């Protein structure tokens, strides 16, 4: 009798331990995984769809630059504050920004991520404890001839005020910041002029400012607008309206179309394209409305647009691909050909309508990554 009691107690103890542990593990398995950290792009993860993009794409995650080529990611810099890559016009090197504690600098890197030259020195001198003596450089770009560095730079800060509105600057490639010229004034407590894209005859950039300054009907809140300026110090010209709230311009390889992100004042981001004739943007066509799209980038061969967007609502940003067919009208169907064999005496047969063309959808290229959606994508053809 005593033995059986001990056995029963032991069995019950085992049941309690096993049941409790398994219940604990079961409940743990029911967590939503919303806080799971993104994987490094180089981790072998199954792709949502097997699509290999042409050339090499450079993009950023967690302070490292990655190159995607032939369907594989390669980490080309350590996780050390690297961001915002762009390509030299001849495709021989990269420009990128490297963040320090309170500053950021522009570097030249080889296509394999080795820094070869530092182009700015924005860290305050040793011993200067005031953090405002440092500077930011963002969104570096080289002119088509490779001779001019364009960037956003907070060089117009005033003493004794809080305004840190960066302006669009140009400086000789390899020159010093003293040779830099401010093309814009950066605005006043607005967030400044960002992401310059040099174009023939000037520069396109995103100006952040209070919408009511430009449109009496607009709300008095900060919005993004595409602007164009054709010379240093000129006032510049609006390309989009405050109510469109557009940003992050990207020009097509032929230079006749612009892709951008517009929010229309909401917590959404629409992928919008428009023709560009060198001085104005044409009618807008919104081609994606159901994703939080960022950093649209044209394929060098014109075959489509890559962009960043979450794969699940409120998730980290993944790489997506939108084939050209998704935003270009299909070619007109050929006219019906006459029936061979001479004149037809009877009633003409009803032509069979062509089958409807299925809509082309964006293709998700990565699943578990977390790309920096404020960092432009560079694409080498």
């Amino acid at each position, binding site marked *: 009798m005593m033995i059986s009691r001990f056995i029963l107690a032991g069995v019950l103890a085992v049941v309690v331990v096993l*049941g*409790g542990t398994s219940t604990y593990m079961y409940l743990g398995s029911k*967590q939503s995984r919303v806080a799971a950290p993104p994987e490094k792009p180089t981790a072998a993860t199954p792709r949502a769809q097997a699509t290999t993009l042409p050339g090499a794409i450079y993009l950023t995650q967690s302070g490292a630059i990655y190159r995607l080529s032939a369907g594989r990611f390669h980490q080309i810099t350590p996780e050390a504050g690297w961001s915002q890559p762009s390509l030299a016009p001849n495709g021989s090197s990269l420009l990128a920004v490297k963040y320090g504690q309170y500053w950021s600098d522009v570097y030249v890197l080889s296509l394999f991520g080795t820094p070869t030259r530092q182009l700015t020195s924005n860290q305050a001198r040793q011993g200067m404890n005031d953090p405002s003596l440092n500077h930011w450089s963002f969104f570096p770009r080289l002119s088509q001839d490779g001779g001019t560095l364009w960037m956003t730079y907070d060089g117009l800060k005033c003493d004794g005020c809080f305004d840190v509105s960066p302006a669009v600057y140009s400086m000789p490639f390899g020159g010093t910041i003293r040779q830099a010229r401010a093309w814009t004034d950066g605005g006043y407590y607005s967030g400044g002029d960002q992401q310059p894209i040099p174009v023939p005859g000037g520069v396109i950039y995103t100006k952040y400012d209070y919408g009511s300054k430009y449109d009496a009907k607009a709300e008095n809140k900060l919005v993004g607008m595409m602007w164009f300026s054709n010379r240093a110090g000129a006032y510049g010209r609006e390309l989009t309206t405050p109510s469109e709230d557009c940003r992050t311009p990207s020009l097509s390889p032929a230079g006749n179309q612009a892709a951008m992100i517009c929010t229309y004042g*909401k917590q959404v981001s629409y992928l919008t394209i428009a023709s560009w004739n060198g001085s104005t943007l044409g009618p807008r066509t919104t081609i994606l409305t159901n994703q*939080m799209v960022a950093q649209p980038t044209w394929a060098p061969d014109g075959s489509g647009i890559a962009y960043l967007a979450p794969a699940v609502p*409120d998730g980290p940003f993944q790489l997506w691909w939108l084939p050209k067919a998704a935003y270009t009208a299909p070619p007109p169907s050929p006219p019906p050909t006459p029936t061979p064999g001479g004149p037809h005496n009877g009633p003409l047969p009803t032509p069979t309508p062509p089958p409807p063309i299925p809509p082309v959808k964006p293709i998700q290229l990565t699943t578990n990554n977390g790309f920096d959606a404020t960092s432009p994508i560079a694409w080498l053809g």
Partner: protein
Amino acid sequence: MAGAFAYFLPAAKAAWDTTGAVVRVTPSPTDLFTTSPTATPSATPAAAITGAFTILLLGSDDDSKFYSDHVLTQSMILVRVVPSSKQVTMLSIPRDLYVHLSTGGFGKIDGAYSYGGAGAAIATVEQDFGVHVDDYIWVGLLGLIKLIDAIGGIDVVTSNPVLDDYYPADIYSSWPYGYERVAVLAGPQHLDGIHAMQYVRSRHGDLQSDLGRSQRQQQVLLAIRQKAKQLSPADLPAMSTAFGGELKTSIGLSKVAQLLPLAGSFDNPDAIRQIILASPYTHGGAPDGSLYPDWGAILPLVHQYFP
């Protein structure tokens, strides 16, 4: 049973510590403007979840510069939820609003919590704005950061670059009076807790100062609400551990359970109304850099959306 008990023990402890807080509403000595003199928010039985309700959200700098429980509320947002029509209205109250405090005298509204805790903050809002507050939620700086990290970050379209050369370096610093430079770039992005905090807290680079900050706070609140729809009850232990005393609320556990599914049913972003009390509702010139309210303009607006 034992496993479930062990699994939810941290959540239960945190819930015991942080929810259902009894609020002693501090009545105004003169009861000016009071429309609900018997208001005792926590004592009000939880209305059926089909009925409309109003929550006061409070956010505080609670770093080591301040004594605990004597902190200012840099963020005060009244939220009205109407489940039947799936409408949400968020009204940001400027922290510098010069009002009649429920604890006596006049001052900036952000001081009410400092003088008398959540009860005084609620009573001040109730008497000055003529609304009834059903419940409150208070979150400290670190609490917001931990909350956003615990839910894996949020997706926000940051409306403008937030660049601040004098952002307070007081969260992870042993010297809470220092400054640091921060830069949150504009556009759609996935923000972790620390960068979301920089986005909603910075005010030096915005001409609208606290009002611009209020707009950003509402953006982040909506993003948190959106992300919360993906949570499951099994996430509660991790969430409660993350808070670590940085959250207080008068909402009881039973009401939390009722609210979670309700949050998921609000899908239409157009049904969310955001109100900022900028000019003409407020204007400068009040003592200590505070803002004078134009009650003649504010009260009709408030009564329209917070009946």
